[in-house]
């Protein structure tokens, strides 16, 4: 009699253990789905979620989540491919444009030397002007395409921000004064040094200054903080929040733009981010502020 009682107890005990294990596995699977989902969203990965146990409902849930992850991933891939194709197209275009332009300029030069009437001369000057513009825009497009395909391991050397900023402002001085803009500059006494690509930095400042020349309504304030923050501020009426958000998008230009490809700020952003810095824009009280920040790299 006792034997059967003990056997029954044994069997029931075994059943309890089996159920406990099953519950444990279910909970583990639920945890894996939650953690896996968060992880997949945060990381750039192709992998999908896997779970412990073979419970049908848990697998259905994981499957549903995986399906969404799969779709998200496919869109990401489509974007990457599209982006790569666009970059390829831009590079090819910039190359293709140069050939006929070179011919045009060549023949224009020849025409210069020919005898011509005053009207012809006037027409030629205008053509020459426009073709110069075309050349500079093509150059900018070409530089942009080089930038896109360039690998971001340009040499980083210690660069004195004060110095580069001063040089860039000096270079743009004539253009600024021509438009009647007197820049107000504020820099700390001590040198602010960061590990950057000097040439790229000059280009960034040049583009921002060019931007100010084109769009400022008369003033320009340039500030360099010892924290590594640089601010370009100018009055620019007529802008709104949405435009400011898209300022750094490639090919974006505001209404009052003239003779611009819209690439200047996009190039600036690319370069700043490649050097490990950050760039942003804000618009308050009719004034546009562009912030650039380079972190101090430790070690």
């Amino acid at each position, binding site marked *: 009699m006792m034997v*059967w009682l003990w*056997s029954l107890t044994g069997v029931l005990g075994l059943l309890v253990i089996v159920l406990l294990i099953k519950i444990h596995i279910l909970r583990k699977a639920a945890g894996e789905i939650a953690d896996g989902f968060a992880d997949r969203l945060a990381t750039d990965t192709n992998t999908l979620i896997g779970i412990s146990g073979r419970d049908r409902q848990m697998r259905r849930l994981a499957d549903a989540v995986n399906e969404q992850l799969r779709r998200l991933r496919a869109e990401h891939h489509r974007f990457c491919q599209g982006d790569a194709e666009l970059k390829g197209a831009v590079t090819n275009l910039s190359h293709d444009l140069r050939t006929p332009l070179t011919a045009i300029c060549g023949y224009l030069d020849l025409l210069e030397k020919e005898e011509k009437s005053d009207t012809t001369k006037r027409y030629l000057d205008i053509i020459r002007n426009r073709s110069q513009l075309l050349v500079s825009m093509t150059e900018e497009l070409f530089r942009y395409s080089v930038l896109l395909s360039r690998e971001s391991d340009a040499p980083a050397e210690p660069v004195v921000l004060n110095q580069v900023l001063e040089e860039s402002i000096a270079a743009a001085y004539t253009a600024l004064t021509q438009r009647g803009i007197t820049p107000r500059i504020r820099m700390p006494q001590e040198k602010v040094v960061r590990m950057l690509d000097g040439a790229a930095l000059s280009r960034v400042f040049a583009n921002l200054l060019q931007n100010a020349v084109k769009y400022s309504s008369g003033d320009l304030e340039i500030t360099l903080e010892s924290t590594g923050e640089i601010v370009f501020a100018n009055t620019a009426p007529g802008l709104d929040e949405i435009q400011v958000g898209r300022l750094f998008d490639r090919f974006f230009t505001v209404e009052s733009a003239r003779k611009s490809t819209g690439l200047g700020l996009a190039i600036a952003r690319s370069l700043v981010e490649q050097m490990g810095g950050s760039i942003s824009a804000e618009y308050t009280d009719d004034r546009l502020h562009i912030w650039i920040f380079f972190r101090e790299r430790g070690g």
Partner: protein
Amino acid sequence: MTRLLSAGFLRLKKNKVFWGGLILMAAWGIFMPVKMHLDAVQMGYVYRIEDGFFVYAMGVGVVMAVFCSLFIGTDYNDGTIRNKIIVGGKRSAVYLANAVVSSVVGLAMCAAYLLPYLCVGLPLVGGFTVPVEMVLLTTFTILLLSVAVSSVFTCIAMVCQYKSVAAVICILLAFGFLMTGMVLAQMLEAPKTQEVYSYAINGEISSVEEPNPGYLEGTKREIVQTLHDINPGGQAIQCAGMMAVNPYRLPVYSLAIIVLATGAGCVLFRKSDLK
């Protein structure tokens, strides 16, 4: 580890050696009571159902030796163990999954014998005549024994990275267990006294008995008995013949073997270099 187990069981379902072993054990389980019944009918022997109920203990060792070495050895020969490690499977998880699958197969082999045996035997030969506690205890001991030999063969197969070598070692070991068991059993069965000579006086035959020098006594007997109890082959022989001297110690020894074999195998596997 559940994932590896799930994968292992998928493989198991398609494994010919597994199904072959099950069929073999089932056939044996059907054959035994049928033979007993036929013998009883033809020659008048009286069998009881428990006479053949525990015999499978002796076969489990060999079947598991073949299965474990082939099942685990394939992972090495085909290189598929790498698939588990490359995607991040932890060494201990891989080992334990294999150990669990082997143990489950061991239990399944036992069940494959027992269930057909009971189904065929109870109607043909009759019910148990020995106490139920003894039957349950012995069955439990044999089940634990099959898990113990599975863990030993798993250890060998996991550490030795070649299927054929592992198979040879496991099978030799399985037979080795049984041989050792038989030798020790014989030593222990030696009678206390033996007949030296007999004489007849007035038609009456008397014999002089002398103590048998081959008879084991005292500490010597204890040692030999303990070895016999620890040896899986020895356990199998004792259970098969319902002659266990220390029936409550046997499961403990099996448990110890499981822990030691699995522990050692796991430690060795963790540090090994895989091709």
